[in-house]
Each structure stands twice: as C-alpha cells, then as structure tokens.
C-alpha cells in the first residue's frame, strides 16, 4: 500500500515540477516586449532625469548579460590578461555599460517599441525583431535584440542591432582601437574606462 502511495506522490511531484519548469520558461519575444514596456514606463513617467537613469540601470542589470557583453567586447584580449585584470575589467565594464546605456536611453521620452517576430539562431541565441514606431520627427527604426537563451528560464539581452548596426560590435571595435593605439596595453583601456565612469 505504502509503495503505491509513494509512487503516486512521486509521480505527482515530478509532474508538478515539470509543469512549473514549463511555466517559468520565458519566450525571448515576450521577454523583450516586457523589458521594453518596463523601460517605456520609466521613460514616460514623471521621474526626474536622475531617477530615470537609476531605474534604467536597475532594468539593465536585471535583463542584460553585462558580463557576457563585456567578454565579447574585450575580444581576443580576454585570453591575454590575468585573473586580477579580468576582475578589474568586469567591475569597470559594468559601471561603464550602465552609465553609457542609461545615458543613451534617458534622452528618449516615451518610445513605442513593437516586437514583430523572432528567429532562433541556435540553442544559445534567438534574435527578436522589433520596430521603434515612427513619430513626426523621425521615421520608424528597426531594432533587433540578440537574446542569450542558454538558460531558457532566464533569457538575457546580449546585443542591440539598430538598422543592422550592432552596438556590441561597435563597442568592441572602439575598445580594440583604444588598446591598439596604446601598443596593446590593456591598462590604457582601464584608464579610459575610469575616465568615462567619473
């Protein structure tokens, strides 16, 4: 009697957990739309500019894979630096990214973004396509979001591609230019990042 009850109980637990997992698996397009809505709410609200920036930083920390972008931005240089330098870079990059991201977005007021479609590239990445709806001052702008989906329960944004121009790639080439102009010295990048963050 007990074993049968136990089996039923175990089966119930397994089914419950698997359906919980299903419930919490987030589709990348829904994730992007909800992130965009959060940002739009912040930008369209009655907050001061500083409050907006703080709120946007909070949203970015939740939804953007800042470490992943940091590694990508560093390119091949990440293989040549030691652990201490890598840790320093991670801290500086996070501050740099949040400041630059929030400052870029804070200029916009009430942007309307509509998610239009998505394309799964592979197990790790899905590209979500959206449009920044046209206003009287500017035409519609295509924005694609590279979403890292390795953990389907916690998708993270890794790149924004505006009219085909990748922000992460632009940043990577900018970083690489700073290092190259200083004879490959990574400390020059750190100094520039510190200057920017100030």
């Amino acid at each position, binding site marked *: 009697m007990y074993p049968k009850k136990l089996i039923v109980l175990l089966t119930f637990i397994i089914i419950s957990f698997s359906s919980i997992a299903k419930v919490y698996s987030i589709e990348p397009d829904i994730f992007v739309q909800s992130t965009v809505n959060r940002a739009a709410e912040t930008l369209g609200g009655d907050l001061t500019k500083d409050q907006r920036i703080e709120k946007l930083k909070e949203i970015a920390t939740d939804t953007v894979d800042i470490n992943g972008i940091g590694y*990508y931005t560093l390119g091949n240089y990440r293989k040549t630096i030691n652990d201490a330098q890598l840790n320093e870079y991670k801290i500086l990059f996070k501050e740099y990214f949040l400041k630059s991201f929030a400052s870029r977005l804070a200029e916009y007021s009430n942007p309307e973004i509509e998610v239009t479609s998505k394309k799964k590239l592979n197990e*790790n990445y899905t590209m979500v396509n959206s449009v920044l709806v046209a206003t009287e001052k500017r035409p519609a702008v295509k924005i694609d979001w590279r979403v890292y989906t*390795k953990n389907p329960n916690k998708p993270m944004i890794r790149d924004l591609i505006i009219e085909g121009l990748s922000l992460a790639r632009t940043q990577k080439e900018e970083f690489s230019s700073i290092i190259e102009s200083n004879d490959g010295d990574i400390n020059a990048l750190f100094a520039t990042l510190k200057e920017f963050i100030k």
Partner: protein
Amino acid sequence: MKKILITVLVSLILTSGTYADTDGQNSLSKKKQGKIKDCFEGLNRATFSLNQGLDKAIFKPVAKGYRNLPSSVRTGTSNALNNLSSLVTIPNNILQGEFKTAGVNTGRFVVNTTVGVLGVFNVAQKIGFSKYEKEDYGQTLGKWGVGPGCYLVLPVLGPSTVRDTAGSFINILGGDPYYNASTHGNNEFLNDSVYMTTKVISGVDFRAKNLESIDNLEKNSMDFYASVRSLYLQDRQQKIKNSNPTIEIMYEGDWEEVESQ
C-alpha cells in the same frame, strides 16, 4: 582632359589598394571581408578632427536651422533628393543584375518626377511601390568582389574606403546622369552650381535627420573616431550584401566564443 585626369586618379586609387598580402592574395579580390585596415589612421584622425571642427562651426548650426523649417518643406526636399538619387541607383541595379528592381525604380522615378512634381511628393509610395533602397557604384564594385581597401576619411565628405571613393569618382566620370546634365547638358536650368547646391542640401538634410543620434553617439563614445569607423563599415557591408538585418546575421562566430553564464 578633365576626364583623363579623373580616370587616372580613379585607377591610381583602385590600384593603390591592390597590394598582395602575406598570403599572396590580392587584397581587393578577397571576397570574404575580414577586418578592414585603417592604413592611414594618423591622417584619417586628423581629417576627422577637421571635419568635426567644420561640423561644429557650419554643418550642425545649419542643420539645426534647417530643422526649424516646416516638416512638409523638409519632407519635400528629402523626397526630391531621394528621387534624384534614383538616377545613380538605377544603373547600379542593372550593373548588379537586379533588373526587376531597376524596372521598379524606373517606374518610381517616372511617377514621382511627373505626378510627384520633380519628386517633391512621393506618390509612388502612396500607390504601393516597394521601399526604395539606394545603390551606388561603391556598392556595385563590392558586389562584384572588389574588396574595400583601406578605410579613408575624406575632408568634408567624411568616412569612406578606397573602393567607395573610387565609386564616387565614377559619378563624375559619366555615371551620374544628373551630374552630366548639370555640367554638360547645355540647358538653362542646370549648371555646376545647381549640382553643388543639391549636394550641399543633401548633406544638410542627412545631418538634420541625425542631429540627436550623432550627439548621443559622441557623448557616449570613448573613441568617437573608432565608433564612427565601425558604424560606417558595418553599414556599407550590410548595404553591399543587400541584407535584411532582421534575417541576415553577421559575425556569428564571435558570439559563439562567449560563455559567461
């Protein structure tokens, strides 16, 4: 004589980028586009600073003034300039083997020039013509497999490559019917100054459309020169491939290496 000089100049520009690399391959014939070299970076950075100075002193204030014009005037100007650019786009559609697109663009040009009053009204769009995509000789050379050569920053004109600069010269070698009509057309409506004015308005129109985005980019860049170079080269690569950014995914390999979670 002028044509001969220009032809020699174009040949020189094209061949100057045609050196053999260490693997013995000619750099202009490589189809796969890797990192584009900034061979003249020192000079380019100096020209970039000069352009920034000119922008702050002249182009930006003029563009801001242009922004104050009624939006119908700006839209009309932009439409007319786009319509004129079809004269370069259509031959390039043909040179790239895009005959159907050439036909559509010719239809668009005829409709907009006549019913749309010299292109001021984009009637073609209203009656259902597909979205207009500009093409130029630099893109055609790229499509034919000519590599970009080195990155260049031209005074006043801004970012370019050896190939794209050569492509621009083709316009004044007979490739742009509007230029031909303006300089050799023997008509009372067009002349060199009208052509130059059109080009200047075109620049102001572009600057006015991008006032905020360029300011924002400059403010958030640690190396503005490198950011502009990256964006220009990405844009050209995409235009040459005629890729739809929502479908075509470039640089996938770089992302595959990144693992952090």
